[in-house]
């Protein structure tokens, strides 16, 4: 690894802190005298093939930022006063151990909630800590309706028996050059703007690769005009939240016109006739009225998608955030299923964690494999939401976020005493009804926050702050689809530790069994990597990645080859062995086994009076490539590119409200008001506005009441809750809330 002039080069994989993202790419870290000096894309890594993103290239500014947390801290003033004193790691561990044990003895382990943010490296270690402590309550607290990927995962699992992803050749070592691969003729991109991010373990620019190298045409389902929509063959500019109707309308066209793959449907699916009957309720004319998409466009898009061979479908968060997100995701799963695009090159391929290795357990099944059936059964009895929403128990063993915050507030049916919040700045990020979350969390007697910088969450809530490492400062591993990857430590910054190290040490103290099972955290990694017949060191030696071998975790056409079912017979991993268009899993959970449409809780249709008062539909959470969620606001190279929280307003709408470019406005509704700077933009529909989320000002006062300006800029203050999906999964109103604008009459907002 020696390079010139005393520079050492570490090849590694990314995930989480630093670049912030869902990770997966290969980067080369150049280190001199123990300090990271440069990041270079690793051209040998099949994921990114040498490319990088702005966030990872700004890593030096992130890691060595003067405000970086580098020592454990203990609160010394009142909570929120912003007074902390450095303590040693052993003092911090002792203190947390004592508090957490006392709470467990008094109120039971379920009285502690373990909180994570989006799907990152944290998923493995936080589940490990919570389960070894004995708490069933791990939660993406604040994320109303668990509306991030879980609805999509649940729908796929309940229909196909597995998860699927759009195939951009990411499971193949030679990528696009592998002869087994074919570019899709058409990619249906639904509720996603892939270029800015690598959401859900998918490098956004793979879509661009398919367009540029493979000539793939795009059908874009998106309320805004985006770069992608301006390159699309068809752009269906739907009203936010009406995705379910549009999906059913497209299924209607495909089924009515006989454009589905009849041989595939016959051989590999069940429930088609019932689906056919259901879609009769959604003729294109009705769907056009619901969605605001012209009927001809719905028909044309459905025809193009169904007749292209192969066709891929790539989707995003907006699917989950539609009302009944799980049902919307089911309808989209049906689109690729009835057109025979399952597990074929350029279609939607079955995605399993590479080599069968678990890093971040997504499902109850994986948790059972790690912690045992008996433990999980016991945990399920107390898990928040398990009695209300069968999917909490049956699919994703997490505490339900909306119910968790209600319980923290009410103390019913049992009290919550403490929170362990790790890599989740929820007060500036995912928390809908932010003030309610803030007030409820303030009632807790003990809060630990593990993070990399002070932020509104550490300031408002933390009794103990633990400094976490970026991916460049830690050993870890990932198996989010493919390839299997390891992350190797290149440097140390201050006293920062990795989430795995911190949680392993805490788990060892809270459950003596952990120490008996694993001498070190590395032994734990190696135990989990054993499924791939490899070790951490072997993975580092081979460049930190390995593509799945022939078998269950490598495409294509595994259902034909008997690679999906535990009994080894051909078919899918469902009770019937077929793709269940009429889902027996949903039926078992008391849900509608077929997809259906529900109007957003707030909309011109469902709440006309509210719409008269608040005539704009707020789309929040749109992504930009230089900032990930609530991160990176303090990184000079990144912040300069987006210095202010902007709201996109159509010029006609702005003119009617007397607003000009650069004015500061309040976006407001009954829940409050939030500041934004006006950007006039043709990209939004005149009846909608669009804004980015995650805003706080690290350069402003951190202590209460200011909390880095979070109450001025946090857009999720306006997002109502609790979510209203019948399944409990989907429907956080982050993209469908009604608001109005009012001008701020000041020099500068």
């Amino acid at each position, binding site marked *: 690894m020696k390079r010139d002039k005393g520079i050492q080069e570490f090849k590694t994989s990314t995930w989480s802190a630093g670049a912030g993202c869902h990770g997966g790419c290969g980067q080369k870290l150049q280190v001199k005298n123990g300090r990271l000096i440069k990041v270079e894309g690793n051209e040998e890594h099949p994921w990114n093939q040498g490319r990088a993103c702005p966030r990872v290239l700004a890593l030096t500014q992130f890691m060595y930022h003067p405000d970086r947390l580098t020592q454990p801290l203990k609160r010394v003033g009142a909570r929120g006063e912003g007074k902390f004193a450095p303590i040693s790691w052993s003092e911090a561990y002792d203190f947390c151990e004592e508090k957490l044990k006392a709470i467990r003895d008094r109120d039971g382990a379920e009285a502690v909630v373990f909180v994570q943010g989006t799907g990152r490296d944290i998923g493995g270690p936080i589940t490990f800590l919570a389960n070894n402590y004995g708490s069933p309550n791990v939660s993406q607290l604040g994320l109303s309706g668990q509306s991030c990927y879980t609805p999509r995962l649940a729908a796929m699992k309940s229909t196909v028996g597995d998860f699927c992803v759009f195939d951009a050749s990411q499971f193949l070592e030679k990528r696009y050059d592998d002869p087994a691969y074919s570019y899709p003729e058409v990619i249906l991109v639904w509720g996603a703007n892939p270029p800015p991010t690598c959401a859900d373990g998918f490098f956004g620019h793979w879509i661009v690769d398919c367009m540029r190298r493979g000539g793939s045409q795009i059908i874009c389902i998106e309320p805004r005009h985006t770069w992608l*929509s301006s390159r699309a063959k068809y752009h269906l500019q739907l009203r936010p939240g009406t995705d379910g109707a549009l999906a059913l309308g497209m299924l209607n066209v495909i089924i009515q016109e006989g454009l589905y793959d009849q041989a595939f449907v016959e051989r590999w699916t069940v429930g088609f006739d019932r689906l056919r009957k259901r879609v009769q309720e959604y003729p294109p004319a009705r769907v056009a009225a619901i969605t605001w998409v012209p009927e001809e466009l719905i028909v044309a898009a459905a025809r193009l998608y169904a007749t292209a061979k192969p066709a891929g479908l790539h989707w995003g968060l907006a699917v989950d955030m539609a009302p009944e997100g799980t049902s919307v995701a089911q309808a989209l799963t049906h689109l690729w299923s009835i057109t025979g695009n399952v597990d074929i090159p350029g279609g939607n391929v079955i995605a399993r964690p590479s080599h069968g290795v678990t890093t971040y357990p997504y499902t109850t099944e994986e948790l059972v494999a790690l912690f045992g059936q008996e433990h999980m059964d016991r945990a399920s009895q107390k898990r928040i939401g398990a009695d209300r929403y069968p999917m909490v128990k049956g699919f994703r063993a997490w505490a339900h976020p909306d119910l968790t915050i209600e319980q923290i507030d009410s103390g019913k049916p049992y009290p919550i005493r403490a929170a362990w919040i790790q890599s989740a700045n929820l007060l500036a990020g995912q928390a809908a009804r932010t003030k309610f979350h803030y007030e409820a969390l303030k009632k807790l007697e003990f809060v630990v926050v593990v993070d990399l910088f002070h932020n509104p969450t550490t300031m408002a809530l933390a009794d103990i702050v633990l400094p976490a490492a970026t991916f460049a400062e830690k050993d870890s591993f990932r198996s989010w689809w493919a390839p299997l990857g390891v992350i190797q430590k290149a440097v140390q910054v201050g006293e920062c530790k990795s989430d795995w190290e911190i949680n392993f040490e805490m788990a060892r103290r809270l459950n003596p069994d952990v120490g008996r099972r694993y001498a070190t955290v590395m032994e734990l990694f190696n135990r989990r990597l054993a499924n791939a017949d490899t070790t951490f060191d072997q993975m580092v030696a081979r460049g930190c990645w390995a593509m799945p071998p022939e078998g269950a975790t490598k495409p294509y056409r595994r259902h034909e080859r008997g690679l999906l079912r535990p009994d080894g017979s051909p078919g899918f991993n469902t009770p019937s062995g077929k793709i269940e268009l009429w889902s027996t899993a949903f039926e078992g959970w008391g849900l509608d086994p077929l997809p259906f449409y529900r109007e957003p809780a707030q909309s011109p249709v469902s709440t006309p009076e509210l719409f008269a008062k608040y005539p704009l539909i707020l789309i929040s959470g749109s992504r930009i490539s230089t900032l990930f969620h609530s991160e990176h606001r303090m990184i000079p190279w990144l912040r300069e590119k987006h210095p202010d929280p902007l709201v996109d307003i159509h010029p006609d709408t702005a003119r009617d409200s007397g607003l000009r470019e650069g004015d500061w406005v309040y976006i407001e509704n009954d829940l409050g008001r939030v500041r934004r700077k006006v950007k006039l933009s043709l990209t939004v529909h005149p009846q909608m506005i669009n804004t980015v989320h995650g805003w706080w000002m690290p350069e402003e006062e951190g202590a209460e009441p200011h909390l880095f300006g979070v109450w001025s800029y946090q857009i999720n203050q306006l997002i109502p809750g609790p979510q209203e999906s019948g399944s409990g999964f989907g429907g956080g109103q982050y993209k469908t809330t009604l608001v109005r604008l009012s001008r701020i009459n000041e020099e500068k907002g």
Partner: protein
Amino acid sequence: MSRHGLLIDYHYCTGCQTCEVACQQEHGHPPGQSGIKVTEFVMKGRTKPVIIDHLPFPTELCILCAGRTSRGELPACVKHCQANCMQFGLLPELLEEMLKRPRTVLFRPR
């Protein structure tokens, strides 16, 4: 004067600004300075209701990564461009390439 240039296939430039930060990291430019800067164009279009284009422009600070290219490496922006829409090469060769591809722009920064 360099015989090299940058050919940019702006049809595929997504405006991700990776090139800007790549250059800033490579050359240690402070915020506010970079060898390349991306501009966004949004307007009513002819074939689409709204078109969105981006154009990365090499500024006076662009030295075509003399150090990297002399070692046989690609310029920092070209290598890291997420859309792979930038090409570094000899001007005559890039011009040949340009003749084959519409919606491209050829820069000779120095």
